[in-house]
C-alpha cells in the first residue's frame, strides 16, 4: 500500500477536473485513488481495458502480472498492445502503453506467472485485486491469496459472446470458494483460444470491472459483492443474479478454515495455469 495523499497539485486538479467535479468522488475520492494500488492479474482481453481506465483515472500504482508474450491473435481484444509489440512480454507492453497515457501512475510489470510461491506476497503489496486471468487454477489461487491477505477481489470473465462479473471477499461477502467449492471437471472448461471471443465483450466487462475497482478504491463500495452480472452480447441483455453469502463452512474464508496456506492449484483443478492446449468442450 501507498502512503496517504493529502493534496492535489495544480496539474492534478486540471487533469482530473472532470471527475473532481462529481460530488460522489470529489477531491477526497481522487486522493484515495491516488493513494491506492491495484494488482491486475492478466494483461489480456480484460486486463487491457481495465488497466487503461484505472491509469486514466489516476490510481496510484498498478501491478501488471502476465507470463505471456504478445501475439498477433491477441490484438483483436488486447487493445493496449500494438502490432509493434509482438513477441514482447505483455506485462512490459502494457506498462509502456499505460505510461504514455498517464506518466504519474506507477506501473510495476511482473512478466511471470502468478504462482502459489509468489502470490500471497504480491497480493499483500496491493489494496485491491482484479482477476483478469483466463484459467481455473489461477482463479482459485488469486481468490485464496485475497482471502489470506484480506484483500477485495473484482473478478470478470468473457467467452464467445458472453461475460460475467462479480466481487469476492468484500466485507462480509462470499469468496470464490464459497460459490465454487469444487473446481469444474477439466474437460468442461473452454478457453478463449478454443471457444473464441468477440474482442469487445471483454472490453465491456473489463470496463465494468474497472468501475467496481474504482468504486472500492474511492470508498464508494462495489455494486456486485454477492451478486453476479451476466451479459449476453448477442441480445445486449444484462441480468443480475443474487449469489449466496459467505459460507461459514468455507474452507478458506469460513469460521474454521482448513486452507491456511496457498496450495497446488494445478493439481487441485486437474489442469494447467499456463498451458494453452486445454480441451474443448461444450461448457
Amino acid at each position: 500500500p501507498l502512503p496517504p495523499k493529502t493534496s492535489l497539485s495544480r496539474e492534478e486538479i486540471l487533469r482530473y477536473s472532470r471527475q473532481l467535479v462529481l460530488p460522489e468522488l470529489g477531491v477526497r475520492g481522487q486522493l484515495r485513488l491516488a493513494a491506492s494500488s491495484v494488482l491486475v492479474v492478466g494483461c489480456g482481453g480484460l486486463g487491457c481495458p481495465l488497466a487503461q481506465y484505472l491509469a486514466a483515472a489516476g490510481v496510484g500504482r498498478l501491478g501488471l502480472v502476465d507470463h505471456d508474450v504478445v501475439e498477433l491473435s491477441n490484438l483483436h481484444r488486447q487493445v493496449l498492445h500494438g502490432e509493434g509489440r509482438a513477441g514482447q512480454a505483455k506485462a512490459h507492453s502494457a506498462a509502456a502503453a499505460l505510461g504514455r497515457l498517464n506518466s504519474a501512475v506507477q506501473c510495476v510489470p511482473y512478466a511471470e506467472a502468478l504462482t502459489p510461491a509468489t502470490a500471497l506476497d504480491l497480493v499483500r503489496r496491493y489494496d485491491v485485486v482484479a482477476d483478469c486471468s483466463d484459467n481455473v487454477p489461477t482463479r482459485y489461487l488469486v481468490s485464496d491469496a485475497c482471502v489470506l491477505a484480506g484483500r477485495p477481489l473484482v473478478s470478470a470473465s468473457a467467452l464467445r459472446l458472453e461475460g460475467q462479473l462479480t466481487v469476492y471477499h468484500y466485507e462480509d461477502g462470499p469468496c470464490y470458494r464459497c460459490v465454487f467449492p469444487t473446481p469444474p471437471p477439466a474437460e468442461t472448461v473452454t478457453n478463449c483460444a478454443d471457444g473464441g471471443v468477440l474482442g469487445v465483450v471483454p472490453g465491456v466487462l473489463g470496463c465494468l470491472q474497472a468501475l467496481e475497482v474504482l468504486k472500492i478504491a474511492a470508498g464508494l463500495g462495489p455494486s456486485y459483492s454477492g451478486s453476479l452480472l451476466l451479459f449476453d452480447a448477442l441480445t445486449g441483455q444484462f441480468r443480475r443474479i443474487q449469489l449466496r453469502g459467505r459460507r461459514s463452512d468455507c474452507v478458506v474464508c469460513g469460521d474454521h478454515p482448513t486452507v491456511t496456506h496457498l496450495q497446488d492449484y494445478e493439481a487441485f483443478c486437474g489442469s494447467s495455469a499456463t498451458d494453452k492446449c486445454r480441451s474443448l468442450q461444450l461448457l
Partner: protein
Amino acid sequence: LSGKLCCWVEGERGGAELLFDGVKKHQVTLPSQDEPWDVRNLLIWIRKNLLKERPELFIQGDSVRPGILVLINDADWELQGELDYQLQDQDSILFISTLHGG
C-alpha cells in the same frame, strides 16, 4: 398426490443452452406424482427429457456438476435449499456455466 406443475428451465446462451438442444428457455410441464416435485427430481426429469447428449457435462451424481450455478427465480439455489427446494408453479430455474476466459 401432487398436481401438475409448470416451470421454466433455462440454460444461458453458449452454455447449458447447448445441452438443452439449443433452446434457451423451455416451458416444462411436470406430471403429477406422489411426492412433491423438488429440484432433485427435476434434475432426473431434465436428464431424461432435455439432455440430448453428454449428460456428464451437466449432471454429476444426483446434482449438477461443479462449475454450474443453479438459480431459482434469479437467486442462488443455495439460499433456497438446493436439491431439496420444492418447486412452485411458474418457478424459473436457470443453469449458468461459469466462464473462465479473459
